[in-house]
């Protein structure tokens, strides 16, 4: 097991470890089925994937103020919210939603992180210490 550490910037506090899921598209959490935690938006790069309990890596949020918060709320109520989120482009709506739903959220991650990270890696996001650790199995 090898660890790679990267710096980041804290938006919403907290610390979490889990499997990573990477999206190339912006996410609107209203388009995620709360019962299964599965992305239902057509043609989305995560269509059919489950965000529940994942460390979610994506560019940023999209959609109106009401639906984004409502989407994350419903996922939280069903126990299917992501464990933490790593983004590039913060917007007021996503930032507010993450803070009030108490989901760790960071941005401004070292560019190298995006070269190292791969789907299924285990990652720790420590928003409070402003660091991310990727754990890789070395064979």
């Amino acid at each position, binding site marked *: 097991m090898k660890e790679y550490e990267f710096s980041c910037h804290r938006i919403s506090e907290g610390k979490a470890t889990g499997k990573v899921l990477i999206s190339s598209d912006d996410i609107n959490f209203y388009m995620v089925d709360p019962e299964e935690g599965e992305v239902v938006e057509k043609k989305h790069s995560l269509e059919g994937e489950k965000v529940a309990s994942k460390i979610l890596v994506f560019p940023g949020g999209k959609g109106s103020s009401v639906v984004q918060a*409502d989407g994350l709320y419903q996922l939280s109520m069903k126990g299917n919210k992501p464990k933490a989120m790593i983004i590039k482009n913060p917007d007021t709506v996503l930032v507010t939603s993450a803070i009030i739903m108490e989901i760790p959220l960071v941005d401004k991650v070292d560019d190298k992180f995006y070269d190292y990270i791969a789907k299924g890696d285990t990652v720790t996001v420590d928003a409070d210490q402003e660091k991310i650790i990727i754990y890789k199995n070395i064979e």
Partner: protein
Amino acid sequence: MYLTDEEKRMLNGEYGEGTAIAMKVQVGIGEAFGAKRMLEISRAHVALSNQEADLWFVEKLVNAGAYCSVPPTVNPGFDLEYFQKITNVSEEEVTMMKRTREAYKKIGAILTYDCTPYLGSNIPRMGEIIAFSESSATPYVNSVWGARSNREASQSALCAAVTGKVPEYGFLLDENRYGNILVEVQAEIKNEYDYQLLGFTGKKIGHGVPVFTGLPDKISPEELMNLGAQLNTAGAFSMFHILGFTPEAPDLETAFGGKKPERKVVITREDLNEIGEYFMPHGGKVDFALLGCPFLTINQVGKIVAILKGERFRVDTYILVNSLTKELAEKMGYLKVIENAGGHLVKDTCMDQPPFWNNMKGKFGITESPKCAFYSRRRGINYAVLELQECIKTAIKGVI
């Protein structure tokens, strides 16, 4: 970020737990966007939605003892008593609406239930620092009134109303308010409907602050409202400029802050026609008409009445307005004309609420609003978008 002693006391809970929660959210937002300090606001508008997260958060603040230091105006839910008279409203929906009303009353909101506060109940002056959520409201207050608001989430606007503060970032700062996209409108823009279509070119315009050129000298409040509402349905726009018309765009130099535009976008009649066709899926028999997303003004209600002239609607017709417009319509005799025609003039009600989800599912309606048509697709309701006057004529005929 720097916090004054008062702001630190808010954060530490000296003003109560509710204020502390609100301040914590706002400091988080401020740090996320690199704000250096907080600024005082003098107005707020909260996009109340009567949906789960909305109710959960406002009740959370109320239960923690929060009270608004700057009373915000709020968006519509639905007119419970009216819909109980004309349709079935489930017990669950009744409870939800009642709880939403009660929570916003307790937190000290002004219960306008109006998505167009910028036309009457909550008008800022130039340069005023404010916190507005609601997609048609933020561009209007920034662009038309020259006030300064970020595109707030409904929850962040509510937090601002409680603390009376906002972190200083984004559209509160001069450098972010300048235009960066030159939008040359070659199509002739003639009426309210054209502004709906123009707004929906937001996807072609792309991310940034557009500066429109080529628009007429006279532009009505309804046209400006349509432009902002549709821009924010097709994309995400906190602000736009109209050359020689909006306060921060007296000339190109000022509008772009002395810089060159990053790109130029040309809008032709073909672009508008393409959007018009997109929102005109098919003709045929119409099941209902739903107008007023955003709410129609008294002038628009007057136009509807002028067309009616004693005719009757052949389909269920709902015209959504704020409570002042409904009161005016009653005084002016408009309400009687609409009711005699079999139509409903409904106050305090958003088209994205249970009475419409329940009763219109699978049906084919007509509306004047691309925004209404766009969001309703997810609820399984199909619309054709027509010019306002055409909607009324079609609702009388019952067929497109």
